[in-house]
């Protein structure tokens, strides 16, 4: 709240100054934006980063559905092993698209349906038992998606064998299988819908919306990107589990709580994808194109771009020491989590205050929603 206010004041001062400076100036965004082709940046984002990331993720969700199908038809040990491996790679791939909450993803509440955690495991149990549920309801965000699969594959018993037995011989085996399959199908169908929109008309809608108003694609996705970094990466993956905000560590808030040794990998992929988006790195190859780094450099703010990159390095170096299971990390040495949080927070300040201000983008989200 406070931060937004400072920003607004800062923007006001800036706006007032620049009006005076370029009295005779051109209409539009002033001298800065003439040196930088925002449209080309949008094209790079859409064609080289967002769409390929979704296509890759969708091929993973497709396999996830197929292997779930195979498992429920024949719930054996090897089928379970294959399914778990696919679950892990799909969940990792999700981290490459989670930040793009715009267009169809936003309309469908894609991220909320796929990855709201902690899971309400009690509600999942009772829905499986009753056999009546509707996963399309927003009140069931925390009963589906990857957190539900995490629970259904890893959390249904004190051992791997016990978990498998729920599907192979348990008295509600059919209900468990049905729920697992419904969850996997829904992950895949929602992903297919979002991917199709990027392959279809939405790509042009997005890249042609080059305006610098708050409704332009650059402003909107930049807000989404920074908000993702702040709320979902910093707070969701590290802040809430470590209790950096509340003062009380909360292991249940760890992503992939039941799979245990997956959480660090998810976090590191999210971090990498955030950095790649900042630098404009293409998905799936070593090329890169225009993104924030180039934009800042064009505005003579290469210093800020370097600070942001250096901070990504600082986050990575403190994060490499984390346990593969952030749940273990929270329970054994939470200090390391808090240190990671502090480095992430420094990056939030650089992105949210300094970068958005340099790009003349106003923050359109607030951290909390009191009502």
């Amino acid at each position, binding site marked *: *709240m406070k931060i937004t*206010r400072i920003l*607004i*004041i800062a*923007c*006001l001062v800036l*706006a*007032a100054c*620049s*009006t005076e400076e370029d009295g005779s100036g051109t209409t539009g965004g002033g001298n800065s934006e003439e040196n930088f082709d925002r449209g080309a940046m949008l094209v790079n984002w859409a064609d080289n980063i967002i769409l390929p990331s979704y296509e890759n993720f969708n091929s993973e969700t497709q396999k996830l559905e197929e292997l779930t199908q195979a498992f429920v038809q024949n719930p054996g040990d090897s089928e379970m092993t294959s399914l778990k491996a696919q679950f892990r790679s799909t969940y990792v791939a999700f981290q490459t698209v989670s930040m793009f909450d715009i267009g169809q993803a*936003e*309309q469908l*509440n894609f991220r*909320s349906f796929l990855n*709201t955690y902690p899971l309400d495991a009690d509600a999942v149990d009772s829905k499986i038992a009753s056999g009546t549920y*509707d996963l*399309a*309801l*927003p*009140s069931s*965000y925390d009963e589906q998606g990857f957190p539900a699969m995490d629970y259904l594959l890893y959390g249904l018993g004190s051992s791997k064998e016990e978990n498998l037995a729920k599907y192979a011989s348990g008295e509600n085996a059919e209900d468990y299988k049905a729920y697992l399959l419904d969850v996997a199908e829904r992950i895949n169908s929602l992903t297919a819908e979002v991917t199709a929109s990027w392959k279809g008309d939405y790509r042009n809608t997005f890249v042609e919306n080059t305006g610098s*108003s708050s409704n332009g694609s650059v402003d909107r996705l930049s807000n989404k990107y920074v908000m993702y970094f702040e709320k979902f990466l910093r707070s969701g993956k590290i802040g809430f589990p470590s209790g950096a905000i509340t003062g009380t560590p909360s292991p249940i808030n760890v992503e992939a709580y039941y799979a245990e040794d997956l959480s660090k990998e998810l976090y590191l992929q999210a971090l990498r994808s955030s950095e790649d988006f900042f630098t404009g790195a293409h998905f799936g190859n070593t090329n890169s194109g225009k993104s924030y780094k180039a934009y800042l450099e064009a505005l003579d703010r290469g210093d800020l771009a370097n600070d942001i990159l250096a901070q990504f390095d600082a986050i990575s170096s403190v994060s490499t020491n984390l346990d593969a299971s952030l749940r273990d990390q929270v329970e054994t040495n939470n200090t390391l989590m808090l240190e990671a949080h502090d480095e992430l927070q420094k990056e939030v300040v650089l992105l949210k205050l300094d970068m958005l201000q340099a790009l003349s983008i106003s923050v359109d989200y607030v951290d909390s*929603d*009191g*009502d």
Partner: protein
Amino acid sequence: MKKLLFSAVIAGLTLVSCSSDDSLGPEGENNNEIPETYNFERDGMSTVDYNGQTTRLQMTAEILSNFNDFDNASEELLLNMFANENSPFVNASLNESSKSVKSKVAASSLYFSTNTVESAEIKNDFESFIIGQMTTVKENKDQLAEAGIAGQIADGERVRYVNEKGLEYNQAFAKGLIGALLLDQIANNYLSQAVLDEGDNRANNDAGITEEGKSYTTMEHKWDEAYGYLYGDPSIPTADPNSVLNESDDHLLFSYLGQVDEDEDFTGIAEETFQAFKAGRAAIVAGDYVERDEQVAIIRENLSTVIAVRAVHYLMGGKDAIEAGNYGKAFHELSEAYGFVYSLRFTNNPVINEPYLLAEDQARIEEQLLAGQGFWDVSPLTLYSISGEIDSRFEFSREEAAE
């Protein structure tokens, strides 16, 4: 964009200069001593007391915290809380109180003392929000809402529960109560001359005759009761309420005063309002009733403006969300708007001592919002023109309020 921001800077500067004029004025004109904080004493004892207002704000908060709890709350429970019957509150001290929210809804001296028919209708409206929530909406709580069908709808990460027209009853209740209870009691009851100057109040105040067993005169106390409806949440310090502006636990008028103050087009409104409360209270201590009533006018105008700014803010927000095809967000914005429009009927234009928006205009606007399938088919143009109708009665533009 730049131009708008620039004019915002000027508006901000203007506001600042206005408020410094205001605070200089009284000092120059008379010898009322205005303390730094809302701290008034007689013989070493504080004369400020508004526990009854705090009680009603706490009752309201408990009603609202139960409004969407379909598993535990019921129509009966919420209606009991509204009327404070059958010990409905978890906070036991509230049950022991003789006060209730309902008795003070649409109950001001100025607007309702000879208008009990409308007062009863308004009380019924609030009960109908409770009943609708606990019947129609509760029955459909596990269904997706559709045009004509109550249920739930996604608003980003949040779930909203709406009636068949897309209206969230909890928003209608909460935001409507800001006008029907808080603003009505402040602007049209406790700060009205009929109440401040009732009976021998002036003579007693001039002579320093306090109420029996109390440290305050009746007039002082009436003023503090107005103060308490705005600043009476337990999380707000009496002496310096703005020290927790936008950080208190209040969800009613004080919260929205802070949110409006955060918009650079209205920066300073919270400080100016607080200064007016202090200056008016000091004027009562000094027996300067002309000065007192000047401060009343500032408070009435500012708090009425807060209601109107939020009404327009949410109407414009709803318009944008509908244009973006985001119905969940739109319905939430429009539900807030509905409540604030409802509250406009309780505003007070100090020039004429009447609402900025008359009851019949408010009713017509609500009809426009809920016609046909309600929020499902209200057009952006309608929302834009309603915003224009409201802003035309105030000193701000819909664009300023929309930010």
